[in-house]
């Protein structure tokens, strides 16, 4: 088999590379045949000339045989292809403006898609650069009966899964955390992961310096203060110190030995953030607080991944893991009743940003396809013009006996050249856009936003597939045109501008209609998204955004216990209030519209009979004295929390208006009592409704409890009302914090306005990108319309001249051309409007207080389209108006 293969390969290479020698041999072979035949004939008694003639007769046309032999060897196909390639390139060089325009359209069309695909691939399918075998990684979360959403896992459960699941070859813990990183006399927040000891080995990551973790790092309470740092951290903070291994670094107040430096381009395993350090699970308590958890089956904190063995499906692994959890449930009912696990494909990982980006990426993918279609219609348009210009050449070739199949091959080759150049340019565009997505999101101080885009084989394959389809389209359009060529007609008539003109114009008009309607749909979509964003951004959060700063101190990772935290808050508050420029200040547990979660719990309301099926769960915030005055939430009744609302006095709460309406129905709630988590509190005030999680949310019941009436380490978000800017205040604050404890890190200080803007960042990104793509589509459509109108004008020069000769003045002609172009636009817009009415419903989930059929969006799309069409038609119309009747008629 191998021998045969190598022999035929040798043959093929020979026929291709040593063409003249192979042809020579063939000629010799045939001559040899002829000579033998001649001798045979002469042996039968023929004279030599007759023998020669008979031999030549019996073999037939030698040139034809040679050609058939070449065909048999499969050489002609390849040779023809190279010939077509050379010819095609020459053709493209000859009309540079056509080639440039076509290739540009293709670059934009394919490039937009390649870029979006690279984001989809980088964020959803292979989110972790440098990690091996990601296609087999699945995210591992816990589930609890009766609770929607996911839970974390406990370390003992995790170990049991690891021991008993035979279908996975690795289990890793990867829990995102934060720590204060001591640099000199100050501290900074750093983002890191708590990972199991096998982390680096399992992911196939080899530290560039030092090593990863050892199995013993997985056990012992705070026993292994070691860390691996990221390449970036090593470069920025440690100046690429080659002797870094073995040095110590203060992390959350504890000296950690640096044992390794991760390789460049490895960012950890969390979509959205680049990790700066990795610490072993034995140190978990230091970063997260809440006691030692490695021996406690009820302490759930683990987020992790599992890598399936090759060929194992997620379903199979899920069944096995569920069975293991079932056994644990029987063995440890106290901690594991109703507990199981769920495996997720990476792009649905419940705890990182992949899921939140999914709808944005879906919209972008759809828009990308629209842009591609519009670009293709444009290229088609250009090709039709060219096919018309080349009709003479095609006709001559057909007349000279060139097969239509051969002609088709050549046209496809030209299409291939165009789309290959387009695809090449597109990949460069996509390469530039790779990391651009991350740049659109606001970064937080000291932490690196990382949204990867990769140009791997999948992106390349998809782009190649797109270009192939485009190639066929590009080749087929002129091919269809040549099919209609009427040999005699074209060759005879020099008045060829009339032949088939109408059919061609109709075809091109259809392409323009497609473009106009698709870009109209995009315009409506962009209009809707912009309006929605506008609504979101002008929506008042019902608290002050100006003149209020927000920051936080990290007490948990600094090892504070509840009592010390309680005391620290009071001390810091005294110092902050004494700072110049501070009008008021208050601590809170969570910041409105921030990244944190509000606590929530089922509540009991005194005097309110719960309907049997209702168990109202209400979110609340823990806030310090003067919180409402500081943040600017007006009170409609009662009073604000004060310093004396402390452990010695009766617990108090403030409810919002919606909550007051719902549970007290018009009666005054002040003085009534509510209970949450077993603690009764007296309502002392009613606050105006405001926005809590998102400006898009509807009014919901919410209440506030007084922070100084519970002792907890949590609750270190600091709000300050001041006319000073964030920078000045941050410096002053950092000084005060350091005066109390130099190990403490201060979070970024931002205005609440900034907080508000960040909360709408992903919408802004979506709108920006869709806007860019929509603008691109509009530009392409305008080029298409312009092309068609110029063509119409150039083709009907004679008619225009005639009209002018018959008394039409230039304004008549101007109107004539404009009318024709605008009619096309109008029909296109009508089609687009019909499509948009259907399609915009798909993005209604993105829209805030805007109907998918919003008249303003449709209206502005119409006006933009009209302006663009008028601009696109203006030049051709102007040219028509300047038609010189004498010259037009003479030509």
């Amino acid at each position, binding site marked *: 088999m191998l021998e045969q293969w190598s*022999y035929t390969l040798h043959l093929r290479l020979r026929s291709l590379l040593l063409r003249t020698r192979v042809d020579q041999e063939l000629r010799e072979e045939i001559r040899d045949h002829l000579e033998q035949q001649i001798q045979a004939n002469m042996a039968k008694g023929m004279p030599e000339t007759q023998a020669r003639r008979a031999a030549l007769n*019996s073999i037939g046309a030698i040139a*034809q045989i040679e050609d058939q032999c070449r065909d048999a060897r499969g050489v002609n196909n390849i040779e023809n292809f190279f010939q077509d390639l050379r010819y095609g390139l020459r053709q493209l060089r000859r009309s540079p403006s056509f080639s440039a325009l076509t290739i540009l359209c293709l670059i934009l069309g394919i490039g937009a898609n390649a870029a979006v695909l690279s984001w989809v691939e980088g964020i959803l399918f292979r989110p972790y650069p440098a990690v091996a075998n990601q296609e087999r990684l699945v995210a591992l979360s816990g589930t609890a009966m009766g609770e929607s959403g996911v839970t974390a896992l406990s370390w003992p459960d995790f170990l049991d899964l690891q021991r008993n699941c035979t279908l996975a070859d690795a289990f890793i813990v990867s829990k995102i955390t934060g720590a204060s990183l001591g640099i000199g006399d100050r501290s900074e927040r750093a983002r890191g992961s708590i990972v199991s000891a096998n982390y680096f080995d399992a992911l196939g990551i080899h530290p560039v310096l030092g090593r990863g973790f050892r199995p013993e790092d997985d056990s012992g309470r705070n026993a292994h203060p070691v860390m691996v740092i990221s390449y970036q951290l090593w470069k920025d903070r440690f100046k690429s110190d080659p002797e870094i291994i073995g040095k110590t670094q203060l992390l959350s107040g504890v000296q950690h030995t640096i044992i390794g430096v991760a390789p460049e381009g490895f960012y950890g395993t969390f979509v959205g953030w680049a990790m700066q350090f990795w610490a072993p699970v034995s140190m978990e308590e230091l970063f997260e607080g809440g006691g030692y958890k490695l021996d406690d089956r009820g302490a759930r904190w683990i987020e992790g991944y599992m890598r399936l063995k090759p060929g194992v499906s997620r379903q199979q692994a899920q069944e096995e893991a569920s069975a293991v959890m079932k056994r644990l449930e029987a063995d440890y009912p106290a901690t594991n009743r109703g507990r199981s696990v769920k495996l997720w494909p990476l792009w649905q990982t419940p705890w990182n940003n992949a899921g939140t980006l999914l709808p944005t990426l879906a919209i972008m993918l759809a828009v990308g396809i629209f842009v591609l279609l519009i670009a293709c219609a444009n290229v088609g348009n250009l090709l039709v013009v060219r096919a018309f210009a080349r009709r003479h050449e095609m006709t001559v070739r057909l007349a000279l006996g060139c097969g239509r199949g051969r002609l088709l091959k050549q046209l496809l080759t030209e299409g291939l050249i165009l789309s290959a150049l387009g695809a090449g340019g597109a990949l460069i565009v996509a390469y530039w856009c790779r990391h651009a997505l991350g740049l659109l999101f606001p970064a937080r101080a000291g932490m690196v936003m990382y949204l990867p885009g990769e140009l791997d084989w999948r992106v390349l394959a998809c782009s190649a597939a797109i270009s192939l389809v485009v190639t066929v389209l590009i080749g087929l359009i002129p091919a269809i045109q040549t099919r209609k060529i009427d040999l005699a007609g074209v060759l005879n008539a020099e008045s060829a501008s009339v032949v088939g003109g109408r059919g061609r114009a109709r075809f091109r008009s259809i392409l323009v209609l497609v473009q106009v309607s698709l870009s109209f749909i995009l315009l409506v979509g962009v209009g809707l998204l912009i309006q929605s964003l506008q609504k979101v951004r002008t929506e008042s959060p019902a608290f002050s955004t100006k003149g209020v700063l927000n920051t936080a101190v990290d007490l948990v990772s600094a090892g504070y216990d509840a009592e010390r935290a309680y005391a620290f808050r009071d001390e810091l508050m005294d110092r902050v209030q004494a700072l110049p420029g501070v009008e008021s200040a208050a601590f809170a547990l969570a910041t409105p519209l921030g990244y944190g979660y509000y606590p929530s719990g089922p509540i009991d309301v005194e005097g309110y009979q719960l309907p049997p099926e209702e168990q109202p769960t209400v979110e609340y915030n823990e806030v310090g004295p003067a919180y409402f005055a500081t943040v600017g939430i007006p009170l409609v009744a009662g009073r604000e929390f004060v310093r004396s609302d402390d452990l010695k006095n009766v617990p108090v709460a403030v409810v919002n208006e919606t909550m007051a309406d719902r549970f007290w129905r018009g009666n005054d709630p002040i003085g009534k009592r509510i209970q949450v988590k077993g603690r009764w509190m007296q309502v002392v005030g009613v606050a105006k409704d405001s926005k809590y999680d998102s400006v898009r949310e509807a009014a919901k019941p919410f209440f506030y409890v007084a922070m100084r009436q519970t002792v907890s380490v949590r609750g270190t978000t600091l709000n300050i009302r001041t006319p000073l800017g964030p920078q000045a205040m941050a410096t002053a604050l950092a000084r005060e914090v350091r005066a109390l404890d130099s190990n403490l890190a201060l979070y970024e200080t931002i205005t609440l306005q900034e907080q508000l803007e960040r909360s709408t960042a992903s919408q802004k990104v979506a709108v920006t990108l869709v806007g860019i793509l929509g603008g691109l589509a509009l530009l392409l459509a305008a080029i298409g319309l312009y092309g068609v109108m110029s063509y119409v004008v150039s083709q009907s020069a004679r008619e225009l001249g005639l009209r002018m000769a018959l008394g039409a003045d230039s304004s008549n002609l101007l109107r004539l051309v404009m009318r024709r172009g605008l009619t096309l636009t109008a029909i296109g817009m009508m089609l687009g409007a019909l499509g948009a009415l259907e399609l915009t419903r798909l993005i209604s989930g993105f829209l805030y207080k805007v109907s998918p059929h919003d008249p303003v969006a449709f209206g502005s799309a119409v006006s933009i389209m009209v302006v663009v069409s008028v601009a696109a038609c203006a030049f051709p119309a102007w040219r028509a108006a300047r038609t010189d009747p004498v010259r037009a008629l003479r030509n």
Partner: protein
Amino acid sequence: MEPMTKPSDLVQGTLDMLILKILALEPQNGWAISQRLKQISSEVLQVSDGSLYPALHKLEQNGWIKAKWMTSEKNRRSKFYSLTAVGRRQLKTETANWDRLSTAISNVVKLKEA
């Protein structure tokens, strides 16, 4: 025009089989093959010399036969074709196919007559 310069698929396949069969006996040059072809089948199949060479080149390309320039006893340099192991297997399957087909056809013909 030669009637067989572009043989139909059936005849083409048959021609391939005949060539393989001839080469199975001993290596031959092109002219000798054409003489054998004429001997075997001159009355039934008209194979022109013109269609022989493309067929030989195709068989070579398929790896069923091998070509080698050799000097014959009369001191003539000729291109000799010989069967490869793959070609031998191919001949076997084609012969078997042919037998099956011809049996089937003759059965059908008999059926019709009965």
